[in-house]
């Protein structure tokens, strides 16, 4: 199989780069090794079976269907194990006897193995091989912008299991990441001291970032609609314009054989959500459809600190509702994949406490995205089309605006095994129109990324260069990444490169208004250097195969230092007479250190860990050095979690240092610490798996603000029930 050969060629690079990828799960119980043998695990309890499903490269495989079948095939009775952690599946109590375990996962060959239960708990790792040519593999190749890992980057696979938390909640636990409300009522993220525009969010390879403002609203994409989320910290020129501080790669939920799932959520402040998903597969191919409906009143109480006595008030106009639909399928006979996705979010855009000016302002973001792709083990081609409408209306001011974006994108990537080259390219056309205006600016852009991997022993070096052309600015951005495996426990990696971001449509073409004027002469902002150096130490590395696939692992520690300098950053500033307009200012610099660790507490106890970021981010202009607003010098998360009486429990505390609120730096929001708690329990009902999850945010009802005068809610509870088959 040619594809397999290519994979083997790239194995070391992937292993090393995966070492740079963060091995720490946010759910602390999911740190396991890639062994094949079973072992007695008292922690699993009597008559219970724990199964870890891993790929050949050692990655935990989530979303698999693991069945325990009686040896008597004639009866064909089976029970489905419940996924209680990333790639970790547990059975209910079962009788002694002989069984067969069957693991099915999208993109992998079905794995089977006999197992005999004799009255004690048992933990087994099942390794699933990649399906050489399969529909699922085609899907994976098509919808991943760049299959494989990102060499030299600190990369995190954001866990999507573990309860009802939002994507923003989960992202906020990553080192170097800050999440905060956006002015329009959404949520935006920043990476390593960046501004929100510095985080490129790709959903199935297409930018989620607002084409007008440049930032991505994380609240638009519910977790229930996703199958994977990967955060790549640092600039990544291979993704073209926009990936100047980090990239978040999201994948819509994919067809998964014969399976179905449904979820229901209720929570504080009028939160209510339902989602469903069904997939069918057969000789003709696969087809899946899903939906998600959600709404929240967000009418929480907060103390108005602007008034004497801090009277308690009710947050107004912070409600939101959303509808998300998707349909995807792939014929078995052809290596193609098609997907249709619709996202519609309508919400209030509340103002600061103390003003009613925006109490009726509403914001709607609606998109329809179609994708058609061809993929094989050595390459892919995708064509995508998006129509996105962004509406803002404020009846109090008789104000209404509608902007529409039409985007077409053709992308391809492949590997040239003979030369060891990785090649990817894209061609895109984006057009924005605004209701009531004749202007319809169009942006054409295209780019090519060419990379080569050199391997010698334990060292891997990958140089690459991205060339991007656009009618709004062009760039050539090189990158070089190195990784070295220093024994079984130590991994070192480093990377340096450049990147760029084109001005947003609003920067260039926003309609003139009183005191506001776009700047059509604006140039791209350029990251002239983005570098990181990291080291990780995994005490369990290389030992898992020997210890029988312990589900526990050992101490894991990772430290990453980073530095980024951005020239000509695009900043809206006022002229001498307060005419606000975007300009290319002098520079942004950000530097910092990210540390994360994860450790078992005792032989069979829970795991604890945390991530910490120390950073300094400054906007410089002439001799001036302003602290970047809302970027703390310190932030961190600490957690402890484990399984007790088959209930997965996790407690965590988020700490964030003080932050300036404006470039002037007159005021600082105080540091805060908020605690959260999660619990989940899986049940088996015949062939169905039921999971109940509880999340409590802001456990001690701390009053704090992420944006000045935008109060955060106090304690909130969220409960989710999910049924899977």
């Amino acid at each position, binding site marked *: 199989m040619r594809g397999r050969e290519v994979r083997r060629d790239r194995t070391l690079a992937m292993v090393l780069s995966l070492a740079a990828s963060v091995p720490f799960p946010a759910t602390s119980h999911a740190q396991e090794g890639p062994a094949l043998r079973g072992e007695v695990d008292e922690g699993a309890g009597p008559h219970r079976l724990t199964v870890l499903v891993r790929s050949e490269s050692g990655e935990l495989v989530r979303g698999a269907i693991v069945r325990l079948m009686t040896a008597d095939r004639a009866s064909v009775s089976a029970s489905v194990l419940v996924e209680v952690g990333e790639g970790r599946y547990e059975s209910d109590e079962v009788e002694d006897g002989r069984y067969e375990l069957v693991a099915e996962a999208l993109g992998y060959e079905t794995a089977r193995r006999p197992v005999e239960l004799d009255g004690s708990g048992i933990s087994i790792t099942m390794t699933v091989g990649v399906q050489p040519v399969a529909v699922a593999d085609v899907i994976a190749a098509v919808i991943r912008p760049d299959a494989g890992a990102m060499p030299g980057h600190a990369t995190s696979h954001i866990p999507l299991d573990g309860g009802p938390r939002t994507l923003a909640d989960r992202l906020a636990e990553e080192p170097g990441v800050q999440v905060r409300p956006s002015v329009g009522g959404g949520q935006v993220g920043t990476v390593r001291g960046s501004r929100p525009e510095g985080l490129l969010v790709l959903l199935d390879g297409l930018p989620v970032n607002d084409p007008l403002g440049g930032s991505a609203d994380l609240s638009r994409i519910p977790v229930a609609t996703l199958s994977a989320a990967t955060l790549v910290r640092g600039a990544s020129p291979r993704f073209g314009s926009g990936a100047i501080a980090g990239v978040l790669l999201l994948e819509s939920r994919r067809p998964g054989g014969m399976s179905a799932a449904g979820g229901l959520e209720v929570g504080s402040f009028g939160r209510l959500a339902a989602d469903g998903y069904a997939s069918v597969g057969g000789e003709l191919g696969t087809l899946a459809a899903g939906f998600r409906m959600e709404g929240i009143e967000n009418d929480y109480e907060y103390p108005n600190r*602007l*008034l*004497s006595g801090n009277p308690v008030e009710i947050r107004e106009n912070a409600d939101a509702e959303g509808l998300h639909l998707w349909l995807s399928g792939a014929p078995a006979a052809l290596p193609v994949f098609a997907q249709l996705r619709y996202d519609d979010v309508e919400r209030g855009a509340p*103002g*600061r406490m*103390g*003003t*009613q*000016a*925006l109490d009726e302002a509403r914001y709607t973001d609606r998109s329809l995205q179609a994708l058609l792709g061809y993929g094989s083990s050595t390459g892919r081609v995708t064509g995508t089309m998006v129509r996105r409408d962004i509406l803002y209306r404020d009846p*109090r*001011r*008789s*104000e209404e605006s509608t902007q529409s974006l039409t985007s077409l994108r053709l992308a391809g990537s492949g590997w040239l095994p003979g030369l060891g080259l990785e090649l990817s390219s894209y061609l895109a056309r984006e057009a924005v129109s605004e209701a009531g205006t004749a202007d319809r600016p169009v942006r054409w852009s295209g780019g090519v990324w060419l990379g080569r991997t050199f391997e010698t022993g334990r060292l891997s070096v990958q140089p690459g260069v991205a060339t991007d052309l656009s009618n709004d600015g062009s760039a050539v951005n090189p990158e070089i990444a190195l990784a070295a495996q220093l024994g079984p426990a130590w991994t070192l990696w480093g990377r340096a490169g450049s990147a760029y971001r084109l001005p947003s449509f609003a920067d260039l073409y926003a309609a*003139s*208004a*009183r*005191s*506001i*004027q776009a700047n059509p002469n604006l140039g791209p902002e350029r990251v002239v250097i983005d570098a990181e150096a990291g080291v990780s130490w995994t005490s369990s590395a290389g030992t898992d195969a020997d210890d029988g696939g312990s589900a526990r692992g050992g101490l894991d520690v990772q430290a990453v230092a980073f530095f980024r300098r951005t020239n000509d950053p695009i*900043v809206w*500033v*006022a*002229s*001498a*007479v*307060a*005419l*606000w307009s975007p300009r290319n*200012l002098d520079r942004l610099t950000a530097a910092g250190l990210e540390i994360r660790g994860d450790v078992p507490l005792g032989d069979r106890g829970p795991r604890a860990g945390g991530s910490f970021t120390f950073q300094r981010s400054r*906007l410089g*202009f*002439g001799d*001036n050095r*302003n602290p970047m607003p809302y970027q703390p010098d310190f932030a961190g998360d600490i957690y402890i979690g484990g399984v007790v009486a088959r209930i997965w429990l996790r407690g965590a505390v988020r700490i964030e240092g003080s932050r300036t*609120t*404006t*470039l*002037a730096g*007159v*005021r600082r929001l105080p540091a805060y610490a908020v605690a959260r708690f999660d619990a989940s329990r899986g049940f088996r009902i015949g062939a169905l798996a039921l999971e109940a999850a509880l999340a409590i945010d802001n456990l001690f009802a701390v009053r704090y603000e992420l944006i*000045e*005068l935008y109060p955060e809610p106090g304690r909130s509870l969220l409960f989710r029930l999910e049924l899977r088959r």
Partner: protein
Amino acid sequence: MSPAAATRQREDMRSSRHGSPCFRGVGFVSIALGLATLVGCSTDGGDPTGPGPGDPPAALLALHSVGQTMQGYEVSGEISPSGAAIDLGGLFDGDAMAVGGVVTDLTAVVTESDFGGDRALVVDVPSRSSVAVTFPDETVNPSKPFVVESRGSAFVGGRASNSVYELSITVPGTPPAVFARDVGEFIEKVVVANDRVFVIDSNIDDVDFTFEPLGNSRVVVFETSGELVREIELPGLQATNAVLSAGRLVVLNAGTLGPAFEPEGNGSLAVIDPASLQLSGPFPLEGNGVSIEEGADGRVYVAVTSDFVSIRTLRFDPTGPGFVDGPQNPIQTRDSDGAPLSCWAATALSDGRLVCATFRSEQAGELFLLGTDGGFIDSTPGGFGTTDLEIVAP
């Protein structure tokens, strides 16, 4: 700070000021602005050649609108900050202030729009604290304030409510009284002179939010008793501010913007004699007005732009009335290297020296001390987005 606490604080502050009238006069300014050095007792600062050795420093307040602060400065042979900046809070989005009580107290009033919170802030400068005052109407969008020391109050117009309010500055926090309702279309300033209340109405459309002129600007005149005197139509469009200087009311008709919001260059000044209500003008600016300040030298200083990039500074004699340094020969405001300076706000000390504030939003602007002819004398870092200057000790 509660009104009662503010009153207590104010009384405490008053009780600490003893001594001769001289000490109370100059010393208070020093205390108020955080001046470290007490200076001589002369109050005659009229020497046009500049201060002599023993002359007291002049003092002024600057409003840094983007930085949301107020900052004191002292001026002698040079200009320098005095004390720490006063934080106006995260809601603040105003661009103008009014100051009163230089001798007996120092209180500044600033306002916020309905985006900011629809409030006025009464700032006790010596204690660097402020009390928020909310208006009785739901949506007010308060105008630039005007302090009337004799009444212990400030007058504020409601751009959105078309009402005129009087709020107490001696007992800050007291709900404002409605002085008049249904006045004009878009009140930009209220000025009190000669026992009359002059309401400056820009007369633009804020109902459909086009902000286009509905007609010429107007001044609606009331007796302080509330009785309507008359309405004066001004020979200009888009009045945005007015000052009282040398006993004359000088109104800045800023002029209109074109379809792409470019300045149309039709700004002008108009002068009203508060006693006779005689109107003079227009006095064309040959540009659009940006700001207007009354100098302590009896002149009015007007900032004018034609391109939203550079600003010219004009000097106007309200008693003439007429330009001293008009559109054809603006003051040559210069930086230390001789480069032209764009002053968002410019005013003059009693000796004729100019103080000019440049507007920067991405970093702190500067305050310049200039000679009467605009030549550079000294400069000091200002704040973010400086939009207003008030001389508090000339």
